[in-house]
């Protein structure tokens, strides 16, 4: 699998004499896959995302994005390939209506008007917001704003989509819907998705997971493997998926659960075999 992001000893300090927010991180992110970066608040995961988007310049170390080294010469070209959805959608609203807001990026790229209108409508339709095209962003709910922010970024058809806690205000059904949309776009557009989160529920659609803790890379592996280590997640201040927490709760009550019981289905099968 080709890498779309490669970092080498990537280090970032917010102040010259301060602690490194990101400390010698070397990793690769495969193209066309969904990679979730998880870590508790202040772990350095958003710093990593901002370095990938060129919003921050590395203190030391280097990174390559979409085949280009991140430097003054390439930063603009790299940004054109990336769509970044921030946690707080209020930070990226520009337009006076939902439609104008989604059009903003396209206007900047000098897309012709007719084509622009078509793309705006399509993008809002994708996120289920086409009926709100003439509404004012201020009259939307938090979750609706997050959908519009996503539409604005998808309209640009980025190769790499970075989601920084971008679905935190969606209701459970809305999150499932957005997950399905993203999986579909990932396949159809060969889009790479990098999602930043601390909530394991938001990693369920990911192919692989990177764990960042105190600025260090702790783990990188397939999603199901990383999520099955409930104790490891807990030690890093992250909540394990329900099955992992149930296993720990049973062990605390003196019940030994076999090691092979790693996911929900196996847990149900094991309990049914024991109790029915």
């Amino acid at each position, binding site marked *: 699998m080709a890498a779309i992001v490669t970092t080498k000893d990537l280090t970032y300090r917010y102040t010259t004499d301060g602690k490194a927010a990101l400390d010698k991180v070397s990793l690769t992110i495969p193209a066309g896959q969904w990679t979730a970066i998880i*870590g508790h608040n202040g772990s350095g995961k958003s710093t990593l995302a901002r370095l990938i988007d060129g919003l921050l310049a590395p203190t030391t170390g280097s990174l390559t994005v979409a085949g280009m080294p991140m430097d003054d010469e390439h930063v603009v070209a790299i940004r054109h390939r990336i769509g970044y959805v921030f946690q707080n959608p209020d930070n990226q609203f520009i337009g006076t209506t939902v439609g104008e807001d989604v059009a903003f990026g396209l206007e900047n790229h000098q897309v012709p008007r007719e084509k622009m209108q078509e793309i705006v409508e399509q993008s809002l339709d994708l996120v289920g917001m086409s009926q709100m095209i003439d509404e004012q962003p201020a*009259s939307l709910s*938090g979750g*609706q704003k997050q959908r519009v922010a996503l539409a604005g970024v998808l309209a640009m058809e980025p190769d790499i989509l970075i989601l920084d806690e971008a679905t935190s*205000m969606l209701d459970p059904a809305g999150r499932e819907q957005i997950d399905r949309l993203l999986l579909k776009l990932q396949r159809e557009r060969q889009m790479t998705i990098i999602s930043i989160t*601390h909530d394991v529920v938001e990693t369920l659609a990911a192919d692989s997971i990177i764990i960042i803790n105190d600025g260090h890379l702790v783990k990188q592996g397939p999603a199901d493997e990383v999520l099955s280590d409930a104790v490891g997640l807990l030690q890093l201040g992250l909540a394990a998926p329900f099955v992992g927490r149930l296993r720990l709760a049973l062990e605390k009550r*003196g019940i030994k659960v076999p090691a092979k019981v790693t996911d929900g289905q196996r*847990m149900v099968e094991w309990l*049914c075999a024991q109790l029915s």
Partner: protein
Amino acid sequence: MALCTVKLNQVDFTYQFGTPFAHQALFDLSLKIEHGSYTAVVGPTGSGKSTIMQLIDGLLRPTKGTVSVNGVTVSPSSSLRQLAALRATTGFVFQLPEKQLFAETVIEDVMFGPLNNGQSASAARENACQALQQVGLGKEFEQQSPFDLSGGQMRRVAIAGVLAMKPTLLILDEPTAGLDSQGARQILELVDRLHQQGTTILLVTHHMEQVATYADQVVVINHGRLAFQGTPRKLFADRKLLAENSLRWPAAVSFDHALRDGGVHLPGPVSLSLDELADKLATQLKGRDQDE
């Protein structure tokens, strides 16, 4: 009859009423929140949850009907001053409240509300210190800049700013959004403690686990209308109601159902929380060991 802290009587609300941009958000909504209850407010995004909270806090004026909070009632003809009276006993923790931090030190930020309400500097400082203690931020934080703190700590400073006003009704709109599990747990345990000390809680949330674990009442809002009010147990027992309102079971409820469907006999009603389910399973598994 139980005392009601909040009463909405046949409330309509329309944004930009009387303009071409008019958009009706609430329809004939009647609702009572009992004094001392912990009520979760759930529903799809854009259903009107935050609009209701803003009406209760006197930030919006009903287009039709009346809103009463702790004995103060407002109607479509009420003045701004009357609206503000609703707020006297209410504290509102907005979505992402740390956006509103502004002062140079934590203590000044938390003192701002009480000072603004006309308290003396010494009274405001005392209330601020107490509020910081309540949210678990010790003396060492008082002189720090709020902007040097972690996300979870900043949110607790913002909540302390609300608690320093000594509200008897506390509204929280998605207070754990964007916080990691540890930060979220600290906030939820804090709210639980305030509830046990007698504060009435209104929690807007999308997390069904929070509803199942902490709330004693749950209100479902959909398309600006009241779809349900009752206990979490009753809500999670009603599959049709959940489906109609884009709600999901908490993980414990799903798991409990999967086990029952698989032939496991679990005593009593469906388990709402992880601990409840683990207790039942542990009892059953140990009982089995003794039988053998």
